[in-house]
């Protein structure tokens, strides 16, 4: 029962200076609201971006390259020796991944793994006396549609038609517009190896990525091998795995086993992922600053109240209230402001999210407008609320403690 007296006094004081209470509560509420909104936006766009990275490219790519040049035998023979060798010519070797079909078979036996041998290169696509330089990917349509989102981005035709058409090619809509090359037209494709082939457009895709839509073409692996004059050769193994987070580890294993440079999606997108970390730090420090300002508001108000209420504190103490009772009176006020601010902040956050979800943006480099990606998770609300509560309680605790240390005699003596 006695603690109800402290709470009753706290409630009466809050109600008595209604305006200050409302202002400090709104301060917390705005902090929580903005935290919820910015955090939803930040983690939403991060997830969206990561999803794009994952969807648009394989999780792991094995390339027919090596990270370091092969060491000369003399260096291996005298690892500690003062050996210098100049004007050596690196050994020529046939590019391509050795025995790729066995590797694909082995990888495909793992559950949830899709592995595809591909041959990439460049060629010139020529139509109606216009040229476009294009990246060529020789692929397996059955597997490609699981590896990337290209199949779902098809506007006309499909990747699968590559299998039925003879010498088919799938190009982006951007390239189609530049060349005036439409469905079922015959394009001339010229490779650096000097081979010229007439290929029929069997599909048009549109990803929204300008470079990609204007400069990428797909064909069957065997067509690419002929075009690039690399029979039976694949220079990429493209892998999708069940858990994308494992990509780095698996890539490292494959690289150490086979020696080929093996890139995980994390390695390829290191710069973007690094950017997210910096972005999150910026976001949370700004939101943290908002909360800190709100907390200082609470601290300021409760400190002022404690100063103003020294007489009341003195009489309550002389009446027989313990120091802890007094501390509770002011702590409860901070808790109240924190709790109400938190709930109000959630409401503000919800409203902000609704408003943000109607905003349409155009990302540079992309052609389409899209809605802001938002993540409406309990996490944002939970963390925002917790942050508000902790800062409000901490801000009230200091002056509350000061209040409990008031010496009633000092006040009573002076208050005539």
């Amino acid at each position, binding site marked *: 029962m*006695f603690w109800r007296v402290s709470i009753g*006094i706290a409630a009466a004081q809050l109600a008595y200076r209604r305006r200050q209470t409302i202002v400090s509560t709104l301060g917390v509420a705005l902090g929580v609201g903005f935290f919820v909104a910015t955090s939803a936006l930040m983690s939403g766009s991060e997830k969206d971006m990561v999803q794009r990275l994952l969807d648009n490219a394989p999780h792991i790519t094995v390339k027919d390259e090596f990270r370091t040049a092969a060491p000369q035998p003399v260096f291996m023979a005298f690892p500690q020796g003062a050996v210098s060798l100049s004007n050596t010519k690196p050994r020529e070797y046939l590019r391509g991944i050795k025995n790729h079909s066995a590797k694909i078979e082995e990888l495909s036996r793992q559950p949830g793994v899709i592995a595809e041998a591909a041959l990439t290169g460049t060629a010139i696509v020529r139509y109606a006396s216009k040229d476009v330089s294009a990246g060529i990917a020789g692929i397996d349509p059955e597997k490609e549609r699981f590896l990337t989102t290209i199949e779902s981005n098809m506007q006309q035709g499909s990747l699968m038609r590559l299998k039925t058409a003879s010498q088919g090619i799938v190009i982006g809509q951007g390239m189609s517009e530049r060349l005036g090359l439409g469905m079922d037209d015959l394009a001339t494709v010229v490779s650096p190896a000097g081979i010229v082939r007439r290929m029929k457009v069997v599909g048009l895709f549109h990803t929204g990525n300008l470079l990609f839509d204007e400069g990428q073409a797909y064909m069957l692996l065997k067509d690419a091998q002929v075009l690039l004059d690399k029979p039976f050769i694949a220079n990429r193994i493209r892998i999708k795995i069940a858990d994308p987070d494992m990509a780095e580890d698996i890539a490292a294993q494959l690289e150490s086993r086979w020696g080929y440079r093996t890139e995980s999606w994390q390695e390829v997108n290191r710069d973007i992922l690094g950017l997210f970390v910096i972005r999150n730090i910026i976001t949370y420090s700004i939101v943290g600053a908002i909360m800190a300002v709100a907390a200082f508001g609470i601290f300021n108000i409760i400190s002022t109240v404690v100063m103003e209420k020294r007489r009341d504190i003195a009489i309550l103490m*002389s*009446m027989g209230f*313990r120091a802890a009772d007094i501390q509770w009176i002011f702590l409860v006020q901070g808790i109240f402001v924190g709790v109400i601010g938190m709930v109000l902040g959630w409401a503000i956050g919800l409203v902000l999210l609704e408003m943000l979800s109607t905003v349409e943006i155009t990302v540079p480099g992309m052609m389409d407008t899209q809605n802001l990606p938002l993540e409406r998770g309990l996490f944002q609300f939970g963390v925002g609320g917790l942050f508000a509560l902790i800062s409000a309680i901490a801000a009230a605790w200091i002056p509350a403690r000061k209040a409990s240390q008031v010496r009633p005699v000092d006040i009573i003596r002076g208050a005539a």
Partner: protein
Amino acid sequence: MTAPEGEPIVELRGVTRILQDAVPVPLVRDIDLVVRRGEFVSVTGPSGSGKSSLLYLLGLLDRPTSGHVLIDGEDTVGFSPDRLAAIRLSKLGFVFQFHFLLPEFTVLHNVTLPMLRLGRLDEKAIHERGMSLLADFGIADQAKKRPDQLSGGQRQRVAVARALSNDPLVILADEPTGNLDMRNSEIVQGIFAELAAKQGRTVIAVTHDTDFANSAPRNVHLVDGRIASDTRR
């Protein structure tokens, strides 16, 4: 001078209080004082003689530098602040020069606050006792008002009602008429006289008001922090 009767309610034994400052200031020195049940004692003395300091020591608001303060036969030396607060809550009632009513609460709520904190009675009984205390001082009709809507004399009566709410062993008053005009001062003085004479309460009142001091059967006069005279009439 009649011989004192009844058991001792408050007792000071060799109490000295020195304010530890750059130069230590003695507030009271070597005070021996026994106040028994039912006594009405006025404490007088010139400004700075230590009257109020003595009252704060009696009321456990201040602690002696040396000596013993006994309340209801219990030596409070070495008690924790919480234990002292518990004694103040149940056994002591204070009235100060300033009324110290909480501005956010109604008059009735102010009076019932010590009872609510003590929690000995249920809410209904607390409410009834609060109303009857206000009725005793003729201010029952003011119960729902806030302190700032009352006159100075009414406020001080509320403060006295509040001091009585937990039925304390002793009322400690520090210049209770000091802030009041003549008429209100007389009313409050009458109340104290009645508390002592009719209700048989133990009252210790610090005052510089000669009339008020003379209305008490016993007077303790302080000079320079020492008891100069202790007279019974």
